[in-house]
């Protein structure tokens, strides 16, 4: 990972916190974003991701800590002097200005010469392929077009950092996927640092260099999309990104140091835990549905269960198994010719390779 030196960091948060009376919107947080990086703040609503974004934008001031933007202490700097760009979910285009005027606005604020403004706006319009609507008002455009205009309005003045607050939340699924690629393309072409806020895990996985997963006003875990998906460190991370089977139990450690988890469904071999654990600790075994398979013989580690339902999701099939203790396991298989055909009510085995499981500390009781 390129967790770079301070010199190459675009944003540096040092112990930043925000509270409203007794409510901690954001607990003490350190975060560094490198120049040119695409970082996503992912989390449920109320997790503190919008607070973090607003702190960086300067719309609220932190209760504690320091914010450094591009090497400059910006903790108390007014919003309009931070040199940022922002894209909102509801586009926030000026209704009384044409598309051209909207994109020209930040350049006029910077008092650029007219000819240069015209040239830069034309370039930005080309970049988003909307040159033909320059003279229209925002309300005459579709949602996707409006969001592209608001992107162009950011790009045109080359801000140090572009903040995006759920920018695709108002668009339908197809358009959203298209815009995700478009934003990725712009990021790759222009090398602008981007901080993207979303509650949509797929969006975060698709777009980010790094995901910062937030929960309850603090950073739960951060890392590449791969790392977050394959190496979640907590039950929250595992459940928020991707779907998961979680089997709670008690840790057993054999004489040779190998780990096992004693659960209501049996005792299973477990890989070395992410956090240090000792025998007798409570823990949770995580197995992703796609790492499980329906098996006839119990060759690998497996759990018996009765097939409750199978649903077809196009390329994949999801089986729901009811186990002896009443819990449900999800098994996901590729939907291809020759896949196991089990019927509702059949007693089957859900198996997995022990190396694909992950041992997590139990969810803290809130």
């Amino acid at each position, binding site marked *: 990972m390129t967790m770079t030196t301070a010199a190459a960091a675009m944003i540096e948060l040092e112990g930043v916190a925000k509270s409203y009376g007794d409510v901690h919107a954001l607990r003490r947080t350190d975060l560094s974003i490198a120049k040119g990086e695409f970082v996503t703040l992912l989390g449920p609503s109320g997790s503190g991701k919008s607070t973090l974004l607003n702190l960086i*934008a300067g719309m609220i001031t932190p209760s504690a800590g320091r914010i450094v933007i591009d090497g400059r202490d910006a903790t108390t700097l007014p919003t309009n*002097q931070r040199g940022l760009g922002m894209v909102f979910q509801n586009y*926030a285009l000026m209704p009384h200005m044409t598309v051209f005027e909207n994109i020209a*606005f930040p350049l006029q*604020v*910077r008092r650029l010469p007219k000819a240069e403004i015209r040239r830069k706006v034309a370039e930005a319009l080309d970049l988003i392929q909307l040159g033909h609507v320059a003279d229209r008002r925002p309300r005459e455009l579709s949602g996707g077009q409006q969001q592209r205009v608001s992107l162009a309005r950011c790009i045109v003045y080359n801000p140090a950092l572009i903040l995006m607050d759920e920018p695709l939340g108002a668009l339908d699924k197809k358009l959203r996927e298209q815009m995700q690629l478009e934003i990725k393309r712009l990021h790759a072409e222009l090398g602008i640092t981007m901080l993207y806020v979303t509650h949509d895990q797929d969006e975060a996985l698709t777009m980010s260099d790094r995901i910062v997963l937030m929960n309850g006003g603090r950073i739960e875990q951060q890392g590449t999309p791969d790392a977050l998906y394959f190496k979640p460190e907590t039950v929250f991370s595992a459940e928020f990104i991707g779907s998961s089977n979680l089997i709670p139990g008690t840790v057993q450690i054999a004489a040779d140091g190998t780990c096992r988890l004693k659960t209501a469904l049996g005792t299973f071999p477990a890989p070395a835990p992410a956090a240090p654990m000792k025998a007798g600790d409570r823990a949770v075994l995580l197995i992703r549905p796609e790492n499980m398979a329906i098996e006839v013989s119990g060759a690998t580690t497996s759990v018996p269960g009765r097939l409750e339902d199978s649903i077809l999701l196009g390329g994949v099939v999801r089986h729901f198994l009811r186990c002896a203790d009443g819990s449900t396991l999800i098994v996901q298989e590729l939907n291809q010719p020759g896949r196991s055909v089990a019927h509702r009510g059949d007693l089957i085995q859900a198996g997995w390779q022990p190396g694909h499981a992950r041992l997590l500390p139990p969810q803290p009781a809130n």
Partner: protein
Amino acid sequence: MSDLFGTSRLARGVVSTAAWTCYLFLLLPSLIVIPISFGNPGQIEFPPRQFTLQLYRQFFTDPAWWGSTVQSLVVACVTTLVALILAVPAAYALARSRLPGRAGLRGLFMMPMLVPVIVLGLGLYLQFSSWGLLDTTAGVVLAHIMLTTPYIMVSVMSGLHHSDVALETVASIMGASRVTIFFRVVLPQLKASIAVGALFAFLMSLDEVVVAYFLTGQNSMTLPVKMYSSIRWELTPVLAAVSTLLTVLSLLIALGIIRMQGKTEASA
């Protein structure tokens, strides 16, 4: 709704007849002056027995009438302008800032709407007499600014209520200063509600009589005061012509307001 007022055709007929009767009752006194204004220049009579524009000619040529008309227009224009300059930024500040005591401040601004006009007139009369502002144009203008500012503020605040704060935020992030944001982002969105407030203020000042009666004299008499005193002292039929002209002007302004309000609703 229909259940509230009864659904039968008879009930509806009765209600609408009653409404129209009331409406006509309110409207007739204003309308009756119109035929009179085209009638006998010697005395007020209804129905008129001849058709002539003599009364209008008298109005436009008599310097006493024409002078107070110009005075009224000047007062109304200056009042509207100054009230706008005061009310629009004040409304913006009240709507957007997190100033402590904001509610109290708003109440203070709205006060002139609540104090009886006659009390206001008397108070201003006493105060202005010690300041030497009686019978001056500045005096009436000041009083009218006080009366009209709250109305503009109400209109502008409702416009601000409909406008999108995110636009101001995004402008600030793009580097715009507060002043730039006010002139280039906020004002354009408020155009219609400012226009409505301004027309209201203009109209109010133009036919305000109570306070102006206290404050004006021979040198600064506004048209409504002149009309009022001419009823008391001479009762000339020129009044009918003046009333007709004022009615037409008010009607035009009211239509303007209605159009503008339609626009604000359409854009919101």
